[in-house]
Protein backbone atom coordinates (compact mmCIF):
# COMPACT_ATOMS: atom_id res chain seq x y z
CA UNK A 1 0.00 0.00 0.00
CA UNK A 2 1.58 3.34 -1.01
CA UNK A 3 2.55 5.68 1.80
CA UNK A 4 0.74 8.95 2.44
CA UNK A 5 4.19 10.56 2.62
CA UNK A 6 6.45 11.40 -0.25
CA UNK A 7 10.17 10.69 -0.21
CA UNK A 8 10.81 14.42 -0.03
CA UNK A 9 8.59 14.84 3.02
CA UNK A 10 10.16 11.90 4.75
CA UNK A 11 13.65 13.33 4.21
CA UNK A 12 12.46 16.73 5.40
CA UNK A 13 11.08 15.29 8.63
CA UNK A 14 14.18 13.26 9.27
CA UNK A 15 16.31 16.41 9.01
CA UNK A 16 13.92 18.51 11.04
CA UNK A 17 13.07 16.17 13.90
CA UNK A 18 15.73 13.48 13.77
CA UNK A 19 18.55 14.98 15.87
CA UNK A 20 16.28 16.06 18.72
CA UNK A 21 14.52 12.70 18.75
CA UNK A 22 17.87 10.92 18.93
CA UNK A 23 18.80 13.06 21.96
CA UNK A 24 15.48 12.29 23.60
CA UNK A 25 15.86 8.57 22.99
CA UNK A 26 19.50 8.57 24.10
CA UNK A 27 18.54 10.27 27.35
CA UNK A 28 16.19 7.39 28.10
CA UNK A 29 18.01 4.34 26.81
CA UNK A 30 21.55 5.64 27.46
CA UNK A 31 22.93 4.16 24.28
CA UNK A 32 23.39 6.40 21.29
CA UNK A 33 23.48 3.64 18.69
CA UNK A 34 20.32 2.16 20.14
CA UNK A 35 18.77 5.62 20.11
CA UNK A 36 19.57 5.99 16.40
CA UNK A 37 17.94 2.63 15.70
CA UNK A 38 14.87 3.58 17.71
CA UNK A 39 14.46 6.83 15.81
CA UNK A 40 15.01 5.10 12.46
CA UNK A 41 12.27 2.65 13.42
CA UNK A 42 10.01 5.56 14.30
CA UNK A 43 10.45 7.06 10.84
CA UNK A 44 9.76 3.70 9.24
CA UNK A 45 6.53 3.53 11.25
CA UNK A 46 5.72 7.06 10.15
CA UNK A 47 6.12 5.99 6.53
CA UNK A 48 4.04 2.85 6.97
CA UNK A 49 1.20 4.35 9.04
CA UNK A 50 1.31 8.10 9.62
CA UNK A 51 -1.14 9.62 12.11
CA UNK A 52 -4.60 10.34 10.70
CA UNK A 53 -4.46 13.96 11.89
CA UNK A 54 -1.82 14.68 9.25
CA UNK A 55 1.46 16.53 9.27
CA UNK A 56 0.48 18.83 12.18
CA UNK A 57 0.54 15.78 14.45
CA UNK A 58 3.86 14.35 13.26
CA UNK A 59 6.05 16.01 15.94
CA UNK A 60 3.96 14.85 18.85
CA UNK A 61 3.41 11.42 17.28
CA UNK A 62 7.12 10.85 16.64
CA UNK A 63 8.01 11.98 20.14
CA UNK A 64 5.46 9.61 21.65
CA UNK A 65 6.63 6.67 19.55
CA UNK A 66 10.30 7.34 20.32
CA UNK A 67 9.64 7.73 24.05
CA UNK A 68 7.70 4.52 24.37
CA UNK A 69 10.06 2.53 22.18
CA UNK A 70 13.05 3.82 24.15
CA UNK A 71 11.46 2.76 27.44
CA UNK A 72 10.38 -0.61 26.10
CA UNK A 73 13.51 -1.52 24.21
CA UNK A 74 15.66 -1.48 27.31
CA UNK A 75 13.11 -3.36 29.31
CA UNK A 76 13.14 -6.01 26.59
CA UNK A 77 16.88 -6.17 26.01
CA UNK A 78 18.02 -5.29 29.52
CA UNK A 79 20.72 -2.97 28.28
CA UNK A 80 21.18 -0.35 30.97
CA UNK A 81 24.31 1.65 31.46
CA UNK A 82 25.71 5.11 31.13
CA UNK A 83 26.38 6.84 27.87
CA UNK A 84 30.06 6.52 26.99
CA UNK A 85 30.53 10.26 26.69
CA UNK A 86 29.31 10.74 30.22
CA UNK A 87 30.96 7.77 31.84
CA UNK A 88 32.51 8.34 35.22
CA UNK A 89 36.03 8.77 33.94
CA UNK A 90 38.23 9.49 36.97
CA UNK A 91 40.47 11.63 34.81
CA UNK A 92 37.57 13.93 34.12
CA UNK A 93 36.53 14.32 37.73
CA UNK A 94 37.83 17.30 39.67
CA UNK A 95 38.30 17.53 43.38
CA UNK A 96 35.63 19.38 45.27
CA UNK A 97 36.28 23.06 45.44
CA UNK A 98 35.21 25.01 48.44
CA UNK A 99 33.32 27.53 46.30
CA UNK A 100 29.59 27.38 46.38
CA UNK A 101 29.18 27.34 42.63
CA UNK A 102 30.29 24.33 40.63
CA UNK A 103 31.92 24.10 37.26
CA UNK A 104 29.25 23.61 34.60
CA UNK A 105 30.87 20.53 33.08
CA UNK A 106 31.28 18.87 36.42
CA UNK A 107 27.67 19.60 37.27
CA UNK A 108 26.54 18.16 33.95
CA UNK A 109 28.50 15.01 34.62
CA UNK A 110 27.05 14.74 38.09
CA UNK A 111 23.52 15.05 36.76
CA UNK A 112 24.30 12.50 34.05
CA UNK A 113 25.56 10.02 36.62
CA UNK A 114 22.44 10.56 38.69
CA UNK A 115 20.16 10.10 35.66
CA UNK A 116 22.03 6.91 34.74
CA UNK A 117 20.95 5.40 38.01
CA UNK A 118 17.25 5.99 37.44
CA UNK A 119 15.02 3.48 35.68
CA UNK A 120 13.71 4.12 32.17
CA UNK A 121 10.21 5.37 33.09
CA UNK A 122 11.72 7.99 35.44
CA UNK A 123 14.23 9.04 32.79
CA UNK A 124 11.47 9.27 30.23
CA UNK A 125 9.18 11.46 32.32
CA UNK A 126 12.05 13.76 33.30
CA UNK A 127 13.03 14.10 29.63
CA UNK A 128 9.48 14.86 28.53
CA UNK A 129 9.03 17.52 31.18
CA UNK A 130 12.46 19.11 31.43
CA UNK A 131 13.72 18.73 27.86
CA UNK A 132 10.61 18.60 25.74
CA UNK A 133 8.75 20.90 28.18
CA UNK A 134 5.49 19.10 27.65
CA UNK A 135 2.51 19.96 29.80
CA UNK A 136 1.12 17.40 32.24
CA UNK A 137 -1.71 16.74 29.81
CA UNK A 138 0.71 16.10 26.95
CA UNK A 139 2.83 13.83 29.11
CA UNK A 140 -0.30 11.90 30.11
CA UNK A 141 -1.13 11.43 26.43
CA UNK A 142 2.41 10.39 25.50
CA UNK A 143 2.70 7.81 28.23
CA UNK A 144 -0.96 6.85 28.23
CA UNK A 145 -1.42 7.50 31.93
CA UNK A 146 -3.83 9.71 33.93
CA UNK A 147 -2.77 13.27 34.75
CA UNK A 148 -2.73 12.54 38.47
CA UNK A 149 -0.26 9.76 37.81
CA UNK A 150 1.91 12.22 35.85
CA UNK A 151 2.32 14.44 38.90
CA UNK A 152 3.10 11.59 41.26
CA UNK A 153 5.56 9.94 38.84
CA UNK A 154 7.26 13.24 38.16
CA UNK A 155 7.55 13.81 41.86
CA UNK A 156 9.11 10.42 42.41
CA UNK A 157 11.51 10.95 39.51
CA UNK A 158 12.64 14.35 40.74
CA UNK A 159 12.98 13.13 44.30
CA UNK A 160 14.98 10.13 43.14
CA UNK A 161 17.21 12.39 41.05
CA UNK A 162 17.91 14.65 44.01
CA UNK A 163 18.62 11.65 46.15
CA UNK A 164 21.11 10.31 43.59
CA UNK A 165 22.72 13.73 43.37
CA UNK A 166 23.11 13.78 47.13
CA UNK A 167 24.59 10.29 47.09
CA UNK A 168 27.05 11.38 44.42
CA UNK A 169 28.63 13.90 46.78
CA UNK A 170 31.95 12.41 47.75
CA UNK A 171 32.44 14.66 50.71
CA UNK A 172 29.13 15.03 52.45
CA UNK A 173 30.66 17.29 55.14
CA UNK A 174 31.41 19.92 52.52
CA UNK A 175 29.06 22.68 51.68
CA UNK A 176 26.05 21.27 49.87
CA UNK A 177 26.07 21.56 46.14
CA UNK A 178 24.25 24.62 44.98
CA UNK A 179 23.36 25.02 41.37
CA UNK A 180 23.29 28.52 40.11
CA UNK A 181 20.27 28.28 37.87
CA UNK A 182 21.32 31.36 35.91
CA UNK A 183 24.35 29.49 34.55
CA UNK A 184 22.30 26.93 32.67
CA UNK A 185 20.28 27.55 29.61
CA UNK A 186 16.92 25.87 29.54
CA UNK A 187 16.42 23.77 26.44
Amino acid at each position, binding site marked *: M*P*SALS*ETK*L*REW*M*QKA*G*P*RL*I*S*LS*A*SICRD*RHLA*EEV*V*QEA*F*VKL*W*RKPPDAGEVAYTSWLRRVVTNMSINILQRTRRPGP*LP*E*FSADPAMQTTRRPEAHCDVDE*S*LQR*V*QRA*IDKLDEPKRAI*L*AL*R*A*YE*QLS*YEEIAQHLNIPIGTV*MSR*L*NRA*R*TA*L*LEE*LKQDLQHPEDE*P*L*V*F*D*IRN*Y*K*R*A
Partner: protein
Amino acid sequence: MESLDCTDIKALLSGLIDDRVDPASRHHAERHLADCKSCRELLDQAEAAEAMVAASIAALGDAEPLPDQFESTVLARTVYADRHGAHGRLVNWFGWLAAAAALALAVSIWVVDRQTILRGSATEFALADPYQVEPEVPSYTLDGMGSLDEHSPDSVAALGVDTTRVQPASYHGPDSSSFIDLNRLSMMPSRSGASARRTKARAVDLNLAHALSRDDSETLDDVSRLMMMLVQSPDQSFVEVERIRRIAEYDRLLPRLAQLRANLAPPDRITVGAAESVLYRVVRGPLSTEDVQIMRDDVNRLELPSQLDAIGNRWSPASSL
Protein backbone atom coordinates in the same frame (compact mmCIF):
# COMPACT_ATOMS: atom_id res chain seq x y z
CA MET B 1 -5.56 22.53 55.06
CA GLU B 2 -4.21 24.94 57.68
CA SER B 3 -0.46 24.51 57.41
CA LEU B 4 2.02 22.33 55.63
CA ASP B 5 5.05 20.50 56.95
CA CYS B 6 8.22 19.34 55.19
CA THR B 7 6.65 16.04 54.16
CA ASP B 8 3.81 17.91 52.48
CA ILE B 9 6.30 20.16 50.67
CA LYS B 10 8.13 17.12 49.31
CA ALA B 11 4.83 15.67 48.12
CA LEU B 12 3.99 18.95 46.37
CA LEU B 13 7.48 19.46 44.96
CA SER B 14 6.59 18.87 41.28
CA GLY B 15 3.40 20.87 41.60
CA LEU B 16 5.35 23.81 43.02
CA ILE B 17 8.01 23.63 40.30
CA ASP B 18 5.44 23.37 37.51
CA ASP B 19 2.81 25.64 39.08
CA ARG B 20 0.24 22.87 39.22
CA VAL B 21 -0.98 23.39 42.77
CA ASP B 22 -4.25 25.06 43.67
CA PRO B 23 -4.04 28.62 45.08
CA ALA B 24 -4.79 27.58 48.64
CA SER B 25 -2.07 24.94 48.68
CA ARG B 26 0.39 27.38 47.13
CA HIS B 27 -0.40 29.95 49.83
CA HIS B 28 0.28 27.45 52.63
CA ALA B 29 3.38 26.15 50.87
CA GLU B 30 4.81 29.64 50.58
CA ARG B 31 4.19 30.26 54.25
CA HIS B 32 6.15 27.10 55.10
CA LEU B 33 8.96 27.94 52.70
CA ALA B 34 9.35 31.36 54.29
CA ASP B 35 10.22 29.67 57.58
CA CYS B 36 12.03 26.50 56.41
CA LYS B 37 15.50 26.87 54.94
CA SER B 38 15.91 23.18 54.09
CA CYS B 39 12.68 23.13 52.08
CA ARG B 40 13.73 26.31 50.29
CA GLU B 41 17.03 24.69 49.38
CA LEU B 42 15.26 21.52 48.29
CA LEU B 43 13.06 23.52 45.94
CA ASP B 44 16.03 25.48 44.58
CA GLN B 45 17.96 22.29 43.98
CA ALA B 46 15.01 20.65 42.29
CA GLU B 47 14.57 23.61 39.95
CA ALA B 48 18.29 23.70 39.17
CA ALA B 49 18.35 19.96 38.57
CA GLU B 50 15.46 20.40 36.15
CA ALA B 51 17.51 22.83 34.11
CA MET B 52 20.51 20.52 34.29
CA VAL B 53 18.46 17.60 33.03
CA ALA B 54 17.44 19.68 30.02
CA ALA B 55 21.02 20.82 29.43
CA SER B 56 22.40 17.31 29.73
CA ILE B 57 19.94 15.93 27.18
CA ALA B 58 20.62 18.80 24.82
CA ALA B 59 24.33 18.05 25.20
CA LEU B 60 23.65 14.62 23.69
CA GLY B 61 23.71 16.32 20.32
CA ASP B 62 20.34 17.71 19.35
CA ALA B 63 22.12 20.46 17.43
CA GLU B 64 24.26 18.00 15.48
CA PRO B 65 23.35 16.77 12.01
CA LEU B 66 21.96 13.31 11.52
CA PRO B 67 24.55 10.52 11.59
CA ASP B 68 25.92 9.18 8.33
CA GLN B 69 23.76 6.50 6.73
CA PHE B 70 20.75 7.42 8.91
CA GLU B 71 18.68 8.70 6.03
CA SER B 72 19.81 6.03 3.59
CA THR B 73 18.96 3.28 6.08
CA VAL B 74 15.45 4.63 6.56
CA LEU B 75 14.93 5.16 2.83
CA ALA B 76 16.11 1.63 2.07
CA ARG B 77 13.48 0.26 4.45
CA THR B 78 10.71 2.51 3.21
CA VAL B 79 10.81 4.21 -0.19
CA TYR B 80 13.15 1.78 -1.96
CA ALA B 81 11.67 -1.32 -0.31
CA ASP B 82 8.18 -0.32 -1.45
CA ARG B 83 9.43 0.38 -4.93
CA HIS B 84 11.02 -3.04 -5.22
CA GLY B 85 8.16 -4.77 -3.54
CA ALA B 86 5.74 -3.42 -6.11
CA HIS B 87 8.19 -4.30 -8.87
CA GLY B 88 8.65 -7.82 -7.51
CA ARG B 89 4.92 -8.35 -7.33
CA LEU B 90 4.61 -7.15 -10.91
CA VAL B 91 7.40 -9.49 -12.06
CA ASN B 92 5.75 -12.42 -10.28
CA TRP B 93 2.42 -11.62 -11.87
CA PHE B 94 3.96 -11.48 -15.35
CA GLY B 95 5.93 -14.62 -14.60
CA TRP B 96 2.76 -16.59 -13.88
CA LEU B 97 1.02 -15.11 -16.88
CA ALA B 98 3.96 -16.04 -19.12
CA ALA B 99 4.00 -19.56 -17.73
CA ALA B 100 0.31 -20.00 -18.45
CA ALA B 101 0.69 -18.63 -21.97
CA ALA B 102 3.70 -20.83 -22.69
CA LEU B 103 1.85 -23.92 -21.51
CA ALA B 104 -1.09 -23.13 -23.75
CA LEU B 105 1.26 -22.59 -26.70
CA ALA B 106 3.16 -25.82 -26.01
CA VAL B 107 -0.05 -27.82 -26.11
CA SER B 108 -0.93 -26.38 -29.49
CA ILE B 109 2.56 -27.06 -30.85
CA TRP B 110 2.10 -30.85 -30.59
CA VAL B 111 -0.25 -30.83 -33.57
CA VAL B 112 2.14 -28.79 -35.78
CA ASP B 113 5.14 -30.05 -37.73
CA ARG B 114 8.13 -28.97 -35.58
CA GLN B 115 10.44 -28.39 -38.53
CA THR B 116 8.38 -25.51 -39.81
CA ILE B 117 8.97 -23.34 -36.75
CA LEU B 118 12.71 -23.69 -36.36
CA ARG B 119 13.71 -20.09 -36.64
CA GLY B 120 15.91 -17.81 -34.62
CA SER B 121 13.46 -16.13 -32.27
CA ALA B 122 14.11 -16.65 -28.59
CA THR B 123 10.72 -17.95 -27.54
CA GLU B 124 10.34 -20.36 -30.45
CA PHE B 125 13.84 -21.63 -29.85
CA ALA B 126 12.97 -22.49 -26.30
CA LEU B 127 10.13 -24.68 -27.46
CA ALA B 128 12.14 -26.43 -30.15
CA ASP B 129 15.10 -28.73 -30.13
CA PRO B 130 17.97 -26.73 -28.56
CA TYR B 131 20.55 -28.69 -30.53
CA GLN B 132 19.16 -27.57 -33.83
CA VAL B 133 18.71 -23.85 -33.53
CA GLU B 134 21.12 -21.06 -32.89
CA PRO B 135 19.52 -18.57 -30.51
CA GLU B 136 19.48 -14.84 -30.99
CA VAL B 137 22.45 -13.93 -28.88
CA PRO B 138 23.92 -10.49 -28.53
CA SER B 139 26.93 -10.32 -30.70
CA TYR B 140 29.78 -8.32 -29.35
CA THR B 141 33.20 -8.02 -30.88
CA LEU B 142 36.34 -7.67 -28.87
CA ASP B 143 38.82 -5.10 -30.12
CA GLY B 144 36.79 -5.05 -33.34
CA MET B 145 37.91 -8.51 -34.33
CA GLY B 146 35.41 -11.31 -34.74
CA SER B 147 32.28 -12.15 -32.89
CA LEU B 148 32.61 -13.12 -29.25
CA ASP B 149 29.80 -15.62 -29.48
CA GLU B 150 31.86 -17.72 -31.86
CA HIS B 151 34.54 -18.21 -29.27
CA SER B 152 34.61 -21.32 -27.16
CA PRO B 153 34.51 -20.83 -23.42
CA ASP B 154 38.26 -21.36 -23.21
CA SER B 155 39.12 -18.71 -25.72
CA VAL B 156 36.75 -16.23 -24.10
CA ALA B 157 38.65 -16.75 -20.89
CA ALA B 158 41.88 -16.31 -22.77
CA LEU B 159 40.75 -12.84 -23.77
CA GLY B 160 41.38 -11.77 -20.22
CA VAL B 161 37.80 -12.05 -19.09
CA ASP B 162 37.17 -14.83 -16.64
CA THR B 163 33.45 -15.16 -17.13
CA THR B 164 33.04 -18.16 -14.89
CA ARG B 165 34.54 -16.81 -11.72
CA VAL B 166 32.10 -15.90 -9.05
CA GLN B 167 32.89 -12.67 -7.35
CA PRO B 168 33.16 -12.40 -3.59
CA ALA B 169 30.23 -10.59 -2.10
CA SER B 170 32.35 -7.86 -0.57
CA TYR B 171 33.81 -6.37 -3.75
CA HIS B 172 36.58 -4.69 -1.85
CA GLY B 173 39.08 -3.60 -4.42
CA PRO B 174 38.70 -4.17 -8.12
CA ASP B 175 39.80 -7.45 -9.60
CA SER B 176 40.59 -6.54 -13.16
CA SER B 177 40.59 -10.08 -14.48
CA SER B 178 36.95 -10.48 -13.61
CA PHE B 179 35.58 -7.30 -15.04
CA ILE B 180 35.01 -6.48 -18.65
CA ASP B 181 36.94 -3.61 -20.15
CA LEU B 182 33.97 -2.06 -21.87
CA ASN B 183 36.19 -0.07 -24.17
CA ARG B 184 37.09 -3.30 -25.93
CA LEU B 185 33.50 -4.30 -26.58
CA SER B 186 31.33 -3.14 -29.43
CA MET B 187 28.19 -4.41 -31.10
CA MET B 188 28.23 -6.41 -34.32
CA PRO B 189 25.82 -5.14 -36.97
CA SER B 190 22.45 -6.66 -36.12
CA ARG B 191 21.43 -9.78 -37.99
CA SER B 192 17.99 -10.21 -39.46
CA GLY B 193 17.19 -13.58 -37.91
CA ALA B 194 19.48 -16.53 -37.29
CA SER B 195 19.65 -19.49 -39.57
CA ALA B 196 19.15 -22.90 -38.10
CA ARG B 197 22.29 -24.96 -38.00
CA ARG B 198 23.50 -27.89 -36.00
CA THR B 199 26.89 -27.55 -34.27
CA LYS B 200 28.32 -29.62 -31.50
CA ALA B 201 30.10 -26.63 -30.06
CA ARG B 202 26.83 -24.76 -29.89
CA ALA B 203 25.21 -27.75 -28.20
CA VAL B 204 27.98 -27.77 -25.63
CA ASP B 205 27.53 -24.06 -25.06
CA LEU B 206 23.81 -24.38 -24.72
CA ASN B 207 24.14 -27.24 -22.30
CA LEU B 208 25.93 -24.92 -19.96
CA ALA B 209 22.87 -22.76 -19.78
CA HIS B 210 19.74 -23.85 -18.04
CA ALA B 211 16.51 -22.24 -17.01
CA LEU B 212 16.94 -19.26 -14.72
CA SER B 213 15.46 -19.32 -11.28
CA ARG B 214 12.85 -16.72 -10.49
CA ASP B 215 15.45 -14.86 -8.41
CA ASP B 216 17.81 -14.76 -11.38
CA SER B 217 15.04 -13.45 -13.61
CA GLU B 218 14.33 -10.71 -11.10
CA THR B 219 18.03 -9.90 -10.85
CA LEU B 220 18.24 -9.42 -14.61
CA ASP B 221 15.10 -7.33 -14.61
CA ASP B 222 16.32 -5.16 -11.74
CA VAL B 223 19.70 -4.58 -13.34
CA SER B 224 18.10 -3.83 -16.71
CA ARG B 225 15.97 -1.18 -15.02
CA LEU B 226 18.98 0.32 -13.28
CA MET B 227 20.80 0.53 -16.62
CA MET B 228 17.77 2.38 -18.02
CA MET B 229 17.75 4.70 -15.00
CA LEU B 230 21.41 5.47 -15.63
CA VAL B 231 20.79 6.23 -19.29
CA GLN B 232 17.82 8.44 -18.50
CA SER B 233 19.39 10.30 -15.57
CA PRO B 234 19.76 14.05 -16.09
CA ASP B 235 23.14 15.44 -17.06
CA GLN B 236 25.18 17.09 -14.33
CA SER B 237 23.06 15.46 -11.62
CA PHE B 238 24.11 12.65 -9.31
CA VAL B 239 20.73 12.14 -7.66
CA GLU B 240 19.73 9.19 -9.86
CA VAL B 241 23.24 7.74 -9.77
CA GLU B 242 23.16 7.81 -5.97
CA ARG B 243 19.76 6.15 -6.07
CA ILE B 244 21.13 3.42 -8.32
CA ARG B 245 24.04 2.89 -5.94
CA ARG B 246 21.73 2.54 -2.93
CA ILE B 247 19.42 0.12 -4.70
CA ALA B 248 22.38 -1.96 -5.90
CA GLU B 249 23.82 -2.10 -2.39
CA TYR B 250 20.56 -2.72 -0.59
CA ASP B 251 19.53 -5.50 -3.00
CA ARG B 252 23.07 -6.97 -3.16
CA LEU B 253 22.86 -6.91 -6.92
CA LEU B 254 26.57 -7.36 -7.59
CA PRO B 255 26.96 -10.72 -5.82
CA ARG B 256 23.64 -11.83 -7.33
CA LEU B 257 24.86 -10.92 -10.81
CA ALA B 258 28.10 -12.78 -10.25
CA GLN B 259 26.26 -15.94 -9.24
CA LEU B 260 23.92 -15.59 -12.19
CA ARG B 261 26.78 -15.06 -14.65
CA ALA B 262 28.36 -18.38 -13.73
CA ASN B 263 25.18 -20.19 -14.75
CA LEU B 264 24.86 -18.68 -18.23
CA ALA B 265 26.25 -19.59 -21.64
CA PRO B 266 29.45 -17.68 -22.51
CA PRO B 267 27.88 -15.14 -24.87
CA ASP B 268 25.31 -14.22 -22.25
CA ARG B 269 28.01 -14.04 -19.60
CA ILE B 270 29.64 -11.24 -21.57
CA THR B 271 26.47 -9.19 -21.44
CA VAL B 272 25.94 -9.75 -17.75
CA GLY B 273 29.61 -9.09 -17.10
CA ALA B 274 29.37 -5.77 -18.91
CA ALA B 275 26.38 -4.75 -16.80
CA GLU B 276 28.25 -5.91 -13.72
CA SER B 277 31.20 -3.72 -14.64
CA VAL B 278 28.98 -0.65 -14.95
CA LEU B 279 27.20 -1.37 -11.68
CA TYR B 280 30.47 -2.02 -9.88
CA ARG B 281 31.76 1.34 -11.02
CA VAL B 282 28.63 3.07 -9.72
CA VAL B 283 28.79 1.30 -6.36
CA ARG B 284 32.51 1.79 -5.86
CA GLY B 285 32.66 5.45 -6.87
CA PRO B 286 33.77 8.17 -6.75
CA LEU B 287 32.35 9.39 -10.01
CA SER B 288 32.73 12.58 -11.95
CA THR B 289 30.12 13.85 -14.39
CA GLU B 290 32.42 12.70 -17.16
CA ASP B 291 32.55 9.17 -15.69
CA VAL B 292 28.77 9.05 -15.60
CA GLN B 293 28.53 10.18 -19.22
CA ILE B 294 31.04 7.52 -20.30
CA MET B 295 29.00 4.84 -18.50
CA ARG B 296 25.80 6.10 -20.15
CA ASP B 297 27.49 5.90 -23.53
CA ASP B 298 28.68 2.34 -22.84
CA VAL B 299 25.25 1.21 -21.73
CA ASN B 300 23.70 2.72 -24.86
CA ARG B 301 26.40 1.44 -27.17
CA LEU B 302 26.10 -2.13 -25.88
CA GLU B 303 22.30 -1.94 -25.66
CA LEU B 304 22.56 -3.43 -22.20
CA PRO B 305 18.95 -2.98 -21.03
CA SER B 306 17.47 -4.75 -24.04
CA GLN B 307 20.18 -7.42 -24.08
CA LEU B 308 19.61 -8.18 -20.41
CA ASP B 309 15.88 -8.41 -21.08
CA ALA B 310 16.55 -10.78 -23.95
CA ILE B 311 18.61 -13.08 -21.72
CA GLY B 312 15.82 -13.09 -19.20
CA ASN B 313 13.28 -13.96 -21.90
CA ARG B 314 15.52 -16.60 -23.41
CA TRP B 315 16.20 -18.52 -20.25
CA SER B 316 13.15 -17.78 -18.18
CA PRO B 317 11.53 -20.79 -16.50
CA ALA B 318 8.41 -20.30 -18.64
CA SER B 319 10.34 -20.55 -21.88
CA SER B 320 12.50 -23.58 -21.18
CA LEU B 321 9.83 -26.27 -21.46
